[in-house]
């Protein structure tokens, strides 16, 4: 009688299943990465605009000092000073040298000891109702860097930090302000 060989051996089918499974896992990983990166981008976009807000506020402080004939960098403290611009934290800046410069950053509270409680104009990503701050999950810090002692330039760094899927993420925006008005 003829010996008829039909069908697949067990090992062949196991190998086929293995190959199929690994290729589909690779495809699935690609597709889930897209989903994650979209969500990550959303948080990052918000953080970028917050960092932009931080640098613009710093610039605004310099400009306001010019308008008021104060020393142009009086609002930024000394080297390595950090100011936290978040709704739940307020940074303090000693403006004795700013000599009572009127509310540069929508000053919410002014202490009698000549110290401005530096609070940004509105809470992050949410305008306050009745002035209550909310925790948005982002923290923002403005740091006076300035390694060289050129008295007409000022290096600042604005860092926004947040958490995504349990991991810490941050962006840092450097900025250089110059005293081109020679005030």
């Amino acid at each position, binding site marked *: 009688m003829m010996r*008829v060989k039909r069908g697949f051996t067990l090992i062949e089918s196991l190998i086929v299943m293995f190959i199929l499974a690994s290729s589909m896992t690779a495809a699935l990983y690609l*597709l889930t990465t*897209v*989903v994650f990166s979209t969500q990550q*981008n959303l948080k990052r976009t918000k953080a970028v605009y917050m960092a932009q807000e931080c640098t613009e506020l710093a610039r*605004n402080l310099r400009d306001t000092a*010019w308008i008021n004939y104060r020393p142009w960098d009086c609002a930024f403290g000394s080297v390595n000073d950090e100011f936290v611009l978040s709704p739940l934290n307020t940074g303090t800046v000693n403006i004795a040298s700013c000599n009572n410069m009127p509310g540069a950053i929508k000053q919410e509270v002014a202490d009698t000891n000549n110290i401005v409680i530096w609070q940004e*104009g509105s809470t992050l990503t949410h305008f306050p109702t009745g002035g209550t701050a909310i925790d948005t999950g982002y923290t923002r810090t403005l740091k006076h860097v300035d390694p060289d002692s050129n008295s007409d330039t000022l290096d600042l760094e604005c860092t926004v930090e947040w958490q995504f899927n349990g991991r810490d993420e941050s962006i840092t925006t450097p900025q250089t302000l110059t005293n081109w008005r020679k005030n």
Partner: protein
Amino acid sequence: MKALPRHKRLLTGVKIKMLNIKSLCQPPIWKLNSKGPKVSGFTLIELLVAIVIIGIMLTLVLGSYWTFLQTQQKMAMSRELQSEVRFAFNRFTDKVRSSTIDYSSYAPGQPCAITGSNLCLVSLDGTKHLFAYDSTDQVLNMAVVPATAAASDPILFEPLLSPDKFVVTGQNFDFSPTLDPSILANPQLQPKVTFYLEVSPRSGLYQDLVIESQTTISSRQY
């Protein structure tokens, strides 16, 4: 069988061959061996069990695949929202940087005095830029009014974000100082504007998607 007499036949000239049923029920020749016919296949119960198992697996796979498709669509909508928000913010940034706050338009009877949440800017050459929020349609509009336009000319507003696809559920323009600093009696501050925006899809499945963002721009006009 004996043949019927000719006069009793229904059809003549037709030979009917009796079928050998036994030959039909036998397996084909190549499945026969000396020990008897061997027919391999699946029993009914085996087939039923296999179908049930395949059904269960398909349910799981298709379920997760369908969820995956939904997530992809939601992410696509989220990406569209993000790019619209970026566009709106870039527009806002450009306008504020190149102009300053138009305090005269906030007086009673002027464009910014009538509407609720709005922003009136003016550049050095006198061109006015207006942002106005329509709360009934939930659309953020923008207009550019050249310096040569008369006060009675109608202002042409255009939506900033595609109104058929997106709805602006919240916005706020907050500027400082609130009084014109060109008048020396008022607080002397460099103008800056804070913009807060909330955008959602207008229709469709993902109306719970919302993007809220805020930025502040300081004017570059001195």
